[in-house]
């Protein structure tokens, strides 16, 4: 099966999208971190 230039471009775009998804998923672990603010009070 011959791959047309159009198909190659589409494959590259899909591969890029998958890679980006994996990276985003990996970063999702870090995004589980939360900023925590500690205040003080007397009552």
């Amino acid at each position: 099966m011959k791959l047309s230039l159009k198909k190659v471009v589409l494959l590259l775009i899909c591969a890029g999208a998958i890679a980006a998804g994996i990276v985003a998923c990996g970063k999702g672990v870090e995004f589980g971190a939360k900023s925590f603010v500690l205040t003080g009070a007397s009552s």
Partner: protein
Amino acid sequence: MKYLLLLASIIITPTSWAATTNASSAILHVYGAYLAESGDCSNPIKFVDNSGSAQSFDMVTTPTLGQGTVPAKTYNCLIIEMTDRVDFVPTTTTGNCTAGTSYTRYVCQAGSSSTNPTTGAVTACTGTSQTGEDHVFIYISTWATNPNGTNAFSPPTYNGDATNGINLATPIDASKGGGAFIFNTTGKVDGGQNPCDLNVPIFSFRSL
């Protein structure tokens, strides 16, 4: 007659009628703060770090003690790293307390000690209620049952420990983004003591 005079002098002694009052200012000196998942306060995450230098905060003014990033988990222990020095100002004049005057109280004294949550090192406190500033850690944990803290400066060793740590009513949900360390001095300034004293405040934590 002598006995009557003696009785009268006892009755009219200022400390015998002096009441307690509130604090218009209660300053703590904070090095940092930690959260730990376990009620024994092990493996804590330091999320407030004043780089070894204590910063002063007036708890009456609802200050921001600090902030940091922690995993969005549930924590059973909050540790406050601070000096044992409390500077307080009585709201009203009663007995030996004068409104507007600043007094100092050291809450960890000779005979007590504090445990470093990271190294486990136990350091003895020094001095009296009037002298000797010490670097201490206060443990607030769901494992501790005592709201006043018989030994607030060491972590509880088992779930239900009535001696070590201060009671944390409910676990801390970090996904809520924060909460307040409460140093409740309501009715704790004691004019019946000489000098004017601060009775044990009620420590607690309130989530956002």
